[in-house]
């Protein structure tokens, strides 16, 4: 499988990365190089093979239901590029 320029642009849009036409063209050849390389996986017979989930067979750890965190809004917004009264501010979103 390989990608064309339109696909590169669509993927960049999905990934929210602005790309110029030149960048898109360069990415097209790089991505096709990588996709060509990974193509060899298609020769592996994976019939009946379970996808890997965990190195060590174990049950997922669970938390007890208790409030143990929060009440640190100042810390939460401490690194924010733009905040007001502990809200994060972003360019207006239209629904």
């Amino acid at each position, binding site marked *: 499988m390989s990608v064309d320029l339109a696909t590169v642009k669509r993927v960049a*849009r*999905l990934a*929210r990365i602005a790309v110029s036409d030149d960048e898109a063209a360069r990415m097209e050849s790089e991505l096709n190089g990588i996709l060509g390389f990974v193509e060899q996986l298609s020769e592996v017979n994976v019939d009946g093979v379970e*996808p890997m*989930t*965990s190195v060590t067979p*174990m*049950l*997922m*750890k*669970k*938390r*007890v*239901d*208790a*409030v*143990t*965190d*929060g*009440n*640190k*809004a100042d*810390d*939460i*917004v401490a690194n924010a590029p*733009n905040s*007001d*009264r*502990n*809200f*994060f*501010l*972003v*360019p*207006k*979103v*239209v*629904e």
Partner: protein
Amino acid sequence: MTLVDVRISEPKRYIPGATGDWEVIIGMEVHAQVTSQSKLFSGSSTVFGNAPNSNVSLVDAAMPGMLPVINEECVRQAVRTGLGLKAQINNRSIFDRKNYFYPDLPQGYQISQFKDPIVGEGKIVISVGPDRQGQFEDVEIGIERLHLEQDAGKSMHDQHPSMSYVDLNRSGVALMEIVSKPDLRSSDEAKAYLTKLRTILRYLGTCDGNMDEGSMRADVNVSVRRPGEDFGTRCEIKNVNSIRFVGQAIEYEARRQIGILEDGGTIDQETRLFDPGKGETRSMRSKEDAHDYRYFPDPDLLPLEFDQAFVDALKADLPELPDDKKERFVAELGLSVYDASVLVSEKAIADYFEAVAAGRDGKIAANWVINDLLGALNKAGKAFEETPVSPAQLGGIIDLIKDGTISGKIAKDLFEIIWNDGGNPAELVETRGLKQVTDTGAIEKAVDDIIAANPDQVAKVQAKPSLAGWFVGQVMKSTGGKANPQAVQALVKVKLGLED
């Protein structure tokens, strides 16, 4: 999923159009906030309405290197709900990431369940009606699945001319997404479904069902078709936040789609918003991008696994659910199906009723709760939780009738006194002198006085015995309603010589 039509098209549900009849097809996706202290994957609080970003942990804000750890209570709540929906419980389920960008979605993905949800197929029986003949129809609505997922934060758009304000307090709160099959065929059915689902969740204590605070929200899938044809193209109406609005949204949307189709147009599959002010649905502008959520199993979380013993223990602890309760009320207490339905419609009412009925006649208790209590609440515009009369007080009133201390009529007055001023029913009867007069001597004197004072009536009653009632009324009046009505009736007949 393959959509299977399990319903029979019936003319009574058709919507007449300009060019013939139409049928509306509805499926619901309900987001129900799990009742828990802390969030699905972090230890911050789920309390509604706190200061901005105060219920937020580093995990909820998706700081670099933060990891989710699942809340065991949320798992139990989902399983309980699944059991309450008579659904398949999956002992192994997977958390996936649903990837998209939005400012109130800090991780850039929502942790949800996609291919392997915790709960599979189940069902809810709804009761629709009454129709013109006063009949109710029970309809079984299929549940497709229930899965656990994270809620998003909240963006506010009215604080600033060019900026949106983002608060992550809700970010990461556990939701159950409960997906119905496309089995609903009218706005009334949709409303009945939501009402019933909410009742079940409240009985289970797994969601408070409070739509005002957003702890229960519905996405409604609506399509229309000619009766008997295949399913049409559907539109999804997002985040409708009251049962009444769900009804309005469906009515509007069905009409809109019928209008387009009758004009020769086609329906675009899209996401729409309901505007409660206008009573209309409109297309969402921000969803112009075709979505590609790139689901994949969350590598930070292992599969969620539990054994059958875990499920069985939760099952053994499940409270009695409304359908079972209704059946029991009918079978054991002899209530009518209608009365039983009213009483189980809310867990609080059912609990109240059971407290009143304990050790008393079920039918009498039901009449008092339905006619007097619910009637008074309705008249006063009060919610059930605000009732000023406790089950003990109402039970006391019923006891006083049963042992002959007060008459049924006085009981109504006593109920009103307690409604307004409170108090112990037995004490009130004493202090306010409401006790029924059963002393025959006193009643006899009152009867004699009325007969002596009304010779004309005495003459008439000989020709027309039904006039005896007039004498009874006069006696009751002169005794302030406290005389035992049966005793008065008997004495009047004897004194007037009407005995056969």
